[in-house]
C-alpha cells in the first residue's frame, strides 16, 4: 500500500502552499485556459515568448494541492525552454504519471509527482497545467479540458 506521504511529498506541499510564478506575466504573448470538469478547477497559463524561448511564464487559478503544485513546478521547470522542449518534457511527465517504469532521469524536481501513479483519479489534476501550457503554445483559443 502506498503511503499518503508518497503522494503529498514535501516539495508538493511546499509548492501548493507557496506557488511560484503565480500571477500575471507582463507583456504576455500567449495564454490559454484549462478546465478540469471533474472538480471544476480552472487554470490560466500566460507566456512571454521571444526568439522561440519562454522568457516569462505564470499561472492563475488551479485548485487542489496536486494541480497547484504541478502548475508551480511546471512554470519553474519550463522557463527558458522552447516549445519543442516543453513537448518532450510533457511526454516524460505524462509517462511518469501513467507508466509503470522508472522516471526519466532528467525530470528533475518534477519527479516528485511519481506518487500520483497510484491515484489514477488524480492524474488529471497533475496534467491540467501542462495541457493548458501546450494549448497556449498552440495558440488554442478554446479552453482545454482534461476530459
Amino acid at each position, binding site marked *: 500500500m502506498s503511503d499518503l506521504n508518497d503522494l*503529498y511529498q514535501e516539495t508538493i506541499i511546499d509548492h501548493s502552499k507557496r506557488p511560484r510564478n503565480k500571477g500575471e506575466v507582463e507583456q504576455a504573448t500567449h495564454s490559454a485556459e484549462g478546465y478540469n470538469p471533474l472538480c471544476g478547477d480552472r487554470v490560466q497559463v500566460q507566456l512571454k515568448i521571444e526568439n522561440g524561448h519562454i522568457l516569462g511564464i505564470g499561472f492563475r487559478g488551479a*485548485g*487542489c494541492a*496536486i494541480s497547484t503544485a504541478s502548475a508551480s513546478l511546471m512554470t519553474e521547470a519550463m522557463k527558458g525552454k522552447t516549445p519543442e522542449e516543453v513537448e518532450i518534457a510533457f511526454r516524460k511527465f505524462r509517462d511518469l504519471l501513467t507508466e509503470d517504469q522508472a522516471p526519466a532521469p532528467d525530470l528533475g524536481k518534477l519527479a516528485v509527482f511519481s506518487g500520483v501513479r497510484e491515484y489514477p483519479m488524480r492524474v488529471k489534476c497533475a496534467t491540467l497545467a501542462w495541457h493548458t501550457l501546450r494549448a497556449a503554445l498552440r495558440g488554442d483559443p478554446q479552453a482545454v479540458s482534461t476530459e
Partner: protein
Amino acid sequence: MSAHAEVLKDSRAATAFNVDRIREDFPILREKVHGKPLVYLDNAATSQKPKAVIDSLVDYYTHYNANVHRAVHLLSTRATAACDDSREKVRRFINAGSTNEIVFVRGTTEGLNLVAQTHGRQNIGPGDEVLISGLEHHSNIVPWQILCEEKQARLRVVHIDDRGVVPLDEFEKALHERTRLVAISHVSNALGTVNPLADMIKMAHRWNAPVVVDGAQAAPHMHVDVRALDADFYAFSGHKLFGPTGIGVLYGKEALFNAMPPFQGGGDMIRSVTFEKTTYNDLPYKFEAGTPDIAGIIGIGAAIDYVNDVGMDAIAAYEQELLEYATDAVSQLEGVRIIGTAPNKASVISFVVDNAHPHDVGTVLDREGIAVRTGHHCAQPVMDRFGIAATTRASLAFYNTREEVDALIAGIRRVQEFFS
C-alpha cells in the same frame, strides 16, 4: 449476561435502531479499503445493496430469465408477473392511485427528460416560462434548457439564500400566468435541503402550472406520498434506493400521461402497427418502448420490500439523529465550514476545509477507508452561489453509524495535519 445488562443492551439496540443487525444485510459493508474497514458516506451518489436485492437479481437470472409480455411459456409468465408485482410495490411505496401512473425508466434523469420531451414539447411555446430553483442538479436544469431553447421559452430560476433555502415568498413571486411548468427537487443532492414541496405545489397549481419533482434524494430517506403532495410528476432512481442501477421510476398523473405523446417508439409501446398508422399501447406501456430492464424492475421491487421491512419512519428518525450528530461534530471542527445550513435537511453534509481542496480531502479520507464525494456534485450553480468550485460531501444512509461519523471527523483532522 445479567438481566440488567440484557435490558440495557436491548434499550441501546432500540435507540440505536439495531444498526448492527441492519449492517449484516449489506455484504459490501464487510469490505476493506486500503486495509481499513469501508466507511461508505457517498450514499447520495449511489447506495449500497442489501443481500435481498442482490439475491433477487441472481434468482431472476438463475431461475426465470425470459422476456416479458411476449411469450406464453412459463418463464415469461413468471417474469411478467414479477414485473407487475414490482410496479404495484412502487405504486404503494409512493401512494400513487394506479399502476398506470408508474412508468419504469432508466433513472431520475431519464424520467425528467421524458417529461421535457413529451409534456414539455407539447405544452410550452414561445414566451412561456419554466421555473426551476437554484438548488437543482444538472439533470433538472439541462433538459429544461434544451426545451426552452427549442421553444424560445424562458428558463426562470428562484435563487437560494445563504443557508441553501429556496425562499418560499420568492418562489411564489416568480410564478405567473406564463409559467407553464415548475421543476424542483424534493431534496437537494449537493446540500441536503428539503424543499417545502406541498406548499410549492399548491402555489404552482394556483397558476395551473404542473410540477415535476426530482425525487432522487428524497425517496431513500423519507415517506413520499405523491397524492398528499399533489405532485404532477415525480421521478426517482432505484440505485439510490438500495436497488440496482439502470432502473428508475417516473410517476405521472394519469390524465397528464394520457394527454402526452409517446417518448420513444418501439416494441411494447404499441397496440398495432401498419406502415400507415400505429396505435399506441395503454398506460403505462405507452412510455416503455423496448424490452425493459427486467432484472432492474425486479430488483427495485426487492429494494422497496427491504425498506418497508426496516420501516421508512424508523429510517427517517434514525438518519435525522445521525445527521444531527454528524452536523454537530463537523461544526465543532475549527477551519471547517458546512455549506448548506437549511433548517430542514436530509442525509447530506457538504463542507469545505480551510487550506485543503476537496480533492485532496477526498484522497486523504479514501486512504482511511472513508468514501465521500468531492467536486461540484453535478450542481455547479449551487457551487457558484457560494463562491466555491467544489465541496466535500458526506451523505448518510440508515446503515451508517456514529462510529463512522467519528472516523470521518478523525479523517478530517488528518487532512488538517497534512495541509494546515
